[in-house]
C-alpha cells in the first residue's frame, strides 16, 4: 500500500489505532475490580418493602390493665414526672409563636427554625458504623411493637452517640424486643423451655417498655455466639415471640446478654406537648394506638387520619410551623407517597397533626425512650494515632486499646 501524502499516512495510522482499540475493547472483557473492604460491618439487609395497596402486618394488642400495673411500678411513670426539666423552657404555647432556634440535629434548617429532627442523628450514626445510608425496614409479621421500639431506641441512642455521650452505637434487633415483650415481660421464664407466648402475633407498649428497661434490654444486629441477629428474620421473630428472647431452649443466655444494655429511661407520654418536649431533648416516642392513616401525604408531608390500625410506630421529630409529629412506620419505604418536609424526612414516614397525635397518645401506651446503657466511654488512647495501620480503627474505641 502506498500513500501519496503525509496526511493520508497519518489518517491511516489514526484509523488503525482506533480499530485496534475498538477490537481490544470488545475482545477483552473488563477485568473484575477487586472488592475493597471498607473495614466497617455490613449493613443489615432489608426485607422487601410493602407495596402500595397491600395489607401490611400490624400487631398492637392493647392490655390496659397490664399497662396500668406497669406504670404503677415506675417511680416516675410520666414524662412530666421523669423529666420535669424538659418542660422548664419548652412551653409549647410559646414555641408555637416563638419557634426554637436550630439544634445540633438541625445543622442547616431549610427555613426559619421550625422544628427538631432527632432522626438525623440516626442517619449520621448509621453511616459512621455501617458505611451506608439508613433505610426504613419492613416488618414481616405482627411484630410492629418491636419495630416501633427498635426505631425509638436506635434514634435515642444515636442522639447520645452524636452528642458524644455514648461511645458506641449499633442498630437494635427487633426479634429480641418482640420475644422479651411477649414472654419475659409477661412474667414467664426466659429459658425457652415452653412456647409461653403462643403462636399468635402482637404485643403492647408497656410490655416492650418493661422488657427494654426493666426485665431485659437490647440485643443488636450482629452475631452472637449462639445465634446471628445480623439480619431481620420474621421467622425468628415468630419463634422468639413464642419462646422468648433467645428462642427455644435458650436457657436464658440471650436474656443475660440483653440485660447488659437496658434502656436507661422510659416514661409515659400522653399529649402533644409532652411528646414535643421529649423530642426536643432527643427522646423519640414509640406510639401504640388504634389510629389509621391515608397512604398519601399532603403538600406539607402530613397524612390524613383514616381508618383504624391496631399498630405501633414511632414519633421521631416535631415541627411548629404547622404543628405536628413525624411518625415512622415499619412497612418499608414505598407504602406512603407524596411531598416530604423536610426533604430528608425518612421514606416511609409521615407527619401527624396535633389533634390526631393527642388522640393516639390518649391510649396511654406510648413512651418516651432514652438511649441504651452499657456503652461506657473508654479513656482516649493518646499513642495509637501516630501508628494505627487502618485509619478507620478509631471508629471502634475498643480497637484503640489494641493498636500496636
Amino acid at each position, binding site marked *: 500500500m502506498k500513500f501519496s501524502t503525509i496526511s493520508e499516512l497519518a489518517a491511516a495510522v489514526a484509523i488503525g489505532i482506533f480499530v485496534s482499540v475498538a477490537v481490544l475493547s470488545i475482545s477483552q472483557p473488563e477485568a473484575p475490580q477487586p472488592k475493597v473492604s471498607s473495614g466497617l460491618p455490613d449493613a443489615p439487609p432489608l426485607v422487601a418493602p410493602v407495596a402500595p395497596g397491600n395489607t401490611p402486618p400490624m400487631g398492637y394488642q392493647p392490655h390496659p390493665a397490664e399497662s396500668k400495673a406497669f406504670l404503677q411500678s415506675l417511680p416516675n411513670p410520666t414524662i412530666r414526672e421523669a423529666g420535669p426539666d424538659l418542660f422548664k423552657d419548652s412551653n409549647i404555647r410559646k414555641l408555637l409563636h416563638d419557634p426554637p432556634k436550630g439544634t445540633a440535629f438541625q445543622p442547616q434548617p431549610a427555613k426559619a427554625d421550625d422544628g427538631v429532627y432527632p432522626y438525623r442523628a440516626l442517619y449520621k450514626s448509621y453511616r459512621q458504623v455501617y458505611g451506608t445510608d439508613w433505610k426504613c425496614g419492613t416488618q414481616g409479621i405482627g411484630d410492629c411493637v418491636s419495630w416501633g421500639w427498635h426505631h425509638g431506641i436506635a434514634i435515642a441512642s444515636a442522639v447520645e452517640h452524636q452528642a458524644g455521650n455514648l461511645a458506641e452505637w449499633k442498630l437494635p434487633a427487633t426479634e429480641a424486643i418482640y420475644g422479651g415483650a411477649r414472654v419475659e415481660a409477661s412474667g414467664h421464664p426466659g429459658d425457652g423451655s415452653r412456647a409461653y407466648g403462643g403462636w399468635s402475633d402482637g404485643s403492647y407498649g408497656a410490655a416492650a417498655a418493661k422488657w427494654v428497661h426493666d426485665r431485659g434490654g437490647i440485643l443488636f444486629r450482629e452475631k452472637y455466639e449462639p445465634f446471628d441477629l445480623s439480619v431481620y428474620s420474621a421467622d425468628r421473630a415468630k419463634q422468639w415471640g413464642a419462646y422468648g428472647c433467645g428462642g427455644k431452649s435458650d436457657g436464658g443466655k440471650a436474656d443475660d446478654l440483653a440485660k447488659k444494655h437496658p434502656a436507661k429511661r422510659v416514661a409515659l407520654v400522653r399529649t402533644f406537648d409532652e411528646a414535643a418536649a421529649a423530642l426536643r431533648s432527643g427522646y423519640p416516642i414509640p406510639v401504640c394506638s388504634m389510629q389509621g392513616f391515608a397512604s398519601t401525604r399532603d403538600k406539607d408531608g402530613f397524612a390524613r387520619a383514616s381508618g383504624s390500625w391496631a399498630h405501633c410506630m414511632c414519633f421521631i421529630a416535631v415541627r411548629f410551623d404547622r404543628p405536628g409529629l413525624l411518625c415512622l412506620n415499619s412497612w418499608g419505604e414505598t407504602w406512603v407517597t407524596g411531598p416530604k418536609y423536610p426533604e430528608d424526612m425518612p421514606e416511609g414516614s409521615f407527619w401527624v397533626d396535633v389533634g390526631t397525635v393527642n388522640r393516639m397518645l390518649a391510649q396511654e401506651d406510648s413512651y418516651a425512650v432514652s438511649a441504651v446503657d452499657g456503652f461506657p466511654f473508654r*479513656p*482516649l488512647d493518646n499513642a495509637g494515632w501516630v501508628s494505627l495501620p487502618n*485509619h478507620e480503627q*478509631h471508629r471502634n474505641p475498643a480497637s484503640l486499646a489494641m493498636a500496636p
Partner: protein
Amino acid sequence: MTEATSKYRLLLAAAVIAAVAYFAGKNGGQLGPQPTPAPPRGPDLVAVFSANPDKAEAKKHAVCFGAICARIADTVEVDAKRGDQRRLQSGIDISAYRSDLRYYTTSGWSFAAKYPALRTAVEEWLDAEAGKDPKQLDEATTRRWVDAFRGLAASAEHAGRAL
C-alpha cells in the same frame, strides 16, 4: 607626639578593630556569646527522631510530624469558633481527626515503624497536657488540646532543626 608614635597608635587601633571584627564574625555577628535557644516546652523529640541513622530522613520525618501536629492544633482552634456547628465536639472527635490526618498525610505510613519511642513520648505528653477524656469538649478542654498539640509541633520542629 612623634610620627612613629602616631603610626604605632594607628596600627594598634587597626589591630583592635580587626580583632573585634574577627571575633564578631566568629560568633555569628554578635559580640557576646551566642544565646542558646530555649528548648521547647514539649517532649524531647530530638532523642526520638535520632533513632533513625539517616539524619536527613529523620529531619524530614520530624518536620512532617510537626506539621501534622500544628495542623491539628489550628483545626481544633478554628473549629471551636463555630460554636454549636463545630465538628470536633468531643475527645473522640479529636481522636478520629488526628488519626485521619496522620493516615492521609503519610499515606498510611506509621511513624512508630521507625521511631518506636514516639508513641510513648506523645502519649505521656498528651495525657499530661490534654487528658484522656473522650467526652464533650468545653472551652477549657479545647484550649488544652490546642496547646498540647502546639507543644508537640514545637518539639518536632525543634528536632527537625537540631538533627
